[in-house]
């Protein structure tokens, strides 16, 4: 951080005296590192710098990726890989064993296919809904000449909350004794137990997700909007273009690369839905109406009475493949958007 030129010399000097005091503390690390450099040579120091990071990545990402694939081909309930029998493609076969993929009840693991169906519908609705609200809000904020910073902050704020907090806040809002039911009683003399009815609970899960994440995508779209040069609108104005046509013929095409990236990002996030839905619906209820794939994996692996690590890993691998396809298409789109 460079201090502005106006920083008084006295402050700079004092700051540095404090810095000198820290010197002794910092030397504690510097001395062994300098010794290491003498031992290895300066040319090997970059490896030393990058090593801790790569080590952690290896242990917690690369090794698990390999393990996930390995576990997917084993059976039994033992945790350690060498205690587990090799079962070949059995886990995948079990997961994909279905009378009709459109009807989860005909599948051997009907919970998995229920989760797939739920996730599919959630992904569709959440992506479209979030995209719509984020786009409109970004356009509105881009238009405001005053208060933009304030509203941007307000709409972004929920993004920073934890999924647990969001789930609880909304569960309380929608509760039997909640505020919404208070209004419903006042106005319509009725109460709805939202989270115990299949249709309502699904709708609210999507709604809460939109409420939770919309601000993030709104910010990205807003940044894209602000990157559109002002003068092309002025040129259009001089040409007598109506505002309606300006939106369809200028804003939308220029924003399209940005929107495509946002869409794929939304798809990737939606497929992984878990925590806020889990908290909001008390673990995917009512019944399995809000059980999603990640929850299926989590329960299959970690429920004390299941512990089917192989099956869970196989489901992970299938989901990972789906996500990989989405991510690669995102990278491809992002690259295209840059050109």
């Amino acid at each position, binding site marked *: 951080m*460079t*201090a502005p*030129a106006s920083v008084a010399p006295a402050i700079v000097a004092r700051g*540095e005296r404090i810095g000198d005091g820290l010197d002794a503390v910092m030397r504690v690390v510097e001395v062994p590192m300098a010794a290491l450099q003498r031992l290895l040579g300066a040319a090997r120091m970059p490896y030393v710098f990058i090593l801790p990071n790569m080590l952690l990545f290896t242990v917690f990402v690369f090794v698990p990726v390999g393990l996930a694939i390995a576990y997917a081909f084993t059976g039994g309930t033992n945790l350690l890989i060498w205690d587990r029998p090799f079962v070949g493609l059995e886990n995948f076969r079990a997961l994909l064993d279905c009378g009709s993929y459109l009807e989860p009840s005909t599948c051997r693991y009907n919970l998995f296919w229920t989760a797939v169906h739920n996730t599919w519908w959630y992904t569709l609705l959440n992506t479209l809904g979030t995209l719509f609200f984020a786009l409109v809000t970004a356009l509105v904020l881009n238009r405001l000449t005053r208060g933009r910073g304030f509203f941007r902050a307000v709409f972004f704020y929920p993004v920073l909350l934890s999924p647990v907090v969001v789930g609880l806040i909304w569960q309380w809002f929608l509760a039997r004794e909640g505020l919404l039911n208070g209004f419903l009683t006042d106005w319509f003399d009725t109460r709805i137990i939202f989270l115990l009815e299949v249709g309502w609970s699904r709708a609210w899960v999507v709604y809460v997700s939109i409420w939770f994440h919309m601000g993030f995508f709104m910010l990205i779209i807003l940044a894209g909007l602000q990157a559109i040069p002002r003068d092309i609108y002025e040129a259009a104005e001089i040409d007598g273009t109506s505002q309606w046509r300006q939106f369809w013929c200028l804003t939308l095409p220029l924003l399209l690369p940005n929107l495509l990236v946002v869409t794929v990002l939304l798809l990737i996030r939606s497929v992984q839905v878990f925590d806020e839905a889990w908290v909001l619906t008390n673990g995917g209820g009512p019944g399995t109406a809000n059980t999603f794939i990640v929850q299926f994996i989590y329960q299959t692996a970690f429920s004390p009475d299941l512990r089917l690590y192989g099956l869970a890993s196989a489901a992970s691998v299938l989901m990972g493949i789906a996500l990989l396809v989405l991510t690669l298409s995102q990278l491809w789109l992002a690259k295209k958007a840059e050109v």
Partner: protein
Amino acid sequence: MTAISMKDLRKSYGSLEVIHGIDIDVGSGEFVALVGPSGCGKSTLLRMISGLEPISAGQMNFDDQRVNDLSPAQRQIAMVFQSYALYPHMSVRKNLSFGLENLRMDRAEINRRVDAAAKMLAIDGYLDRRPKALSGGQRQRVAIGRAIVRQPRVFLFDEPLSNLDAKLRVQTRSEITKLHKQLKTTMIYVTHDQVEAMTMAQKIVVLNKGKVEQIGRPLDLFERPANLFVAGFIGSPRMNLYPGKVVSTGSEGVTLDSAQLGRFVVPAAGIDVQSGNDVTIGLRPSHLRLGSAEAGSSGGAMTVEQVESMGHETFVYGRTGQSDELTIVHVPGHFEAETGSSLAFTFDPAFAHLFSSVDGRSLKGARI
């Protein structure tokens, strides 16, 4: 006081060689300038001397010590960067003392050296400021101060004046010269500006495309350029060059024939040419005079294209014959001429340089 010797130094990036075997000897306490056009390898060479750039092949010695594999710190050099590279988050004092602290020097000694350097460079008034709060000239002095406090064996300067305005540049030029006289440390100075090299250095190394073109005292380079490249590079404005042919050689000198300058005799003996050879004739603008040829001199005529008068001197640019290059004539004082008018010029053949048209090698230097 350290002498530096470089023997067949080479630098390559993969299969691409950028420095092709350089031999330079820098005497102890000498001020040497490395000049050349951009991309000639002068900065790379400086960085090889500093130890920032590994040496691919060859040998570099500081006195009798081989330093090829030593780090900059071990070579005990100090360097002033073109961008100054002052640490923006440290005060001037800290900028000066940082290097000494790295050497775990005694605090009292650090303070003594910093104060001495600050006084010498007249930057003691703003030791507690950050570099951002300083002017360009002050930053430049801090950069030099940071080099001085180290009391290095060799000072390296990488185009240190290129970020200063013209007036400050002239002033700082003389300050660095003064500094060298005071410290008597070996200094190597990289610049693309021949005026800086000519005015400051005791010895100039002209580099081109990763090779040494000539090494010599400033005046030697001006008066006896070893080849066409040096002839064209040293001297401002550039030397006038004309194609010519050797008519005959004899005891009185070499008789030349040139489409632009006519036939004349260069009075010098022992020039390695034979009749019929193609040569390039070089004449400095200051050796041309306006006016018709008299006895003992030769001349040509040109159509004026441009006149640049600076008041105390004037450069006249004109076209001579079919030549692409304009002839430049230096005229003392103010001078005016119509564009398109015809002017005659003369010269003393004794001042003519001769270069081989085959390899550009100098065949004869000018008379002093």
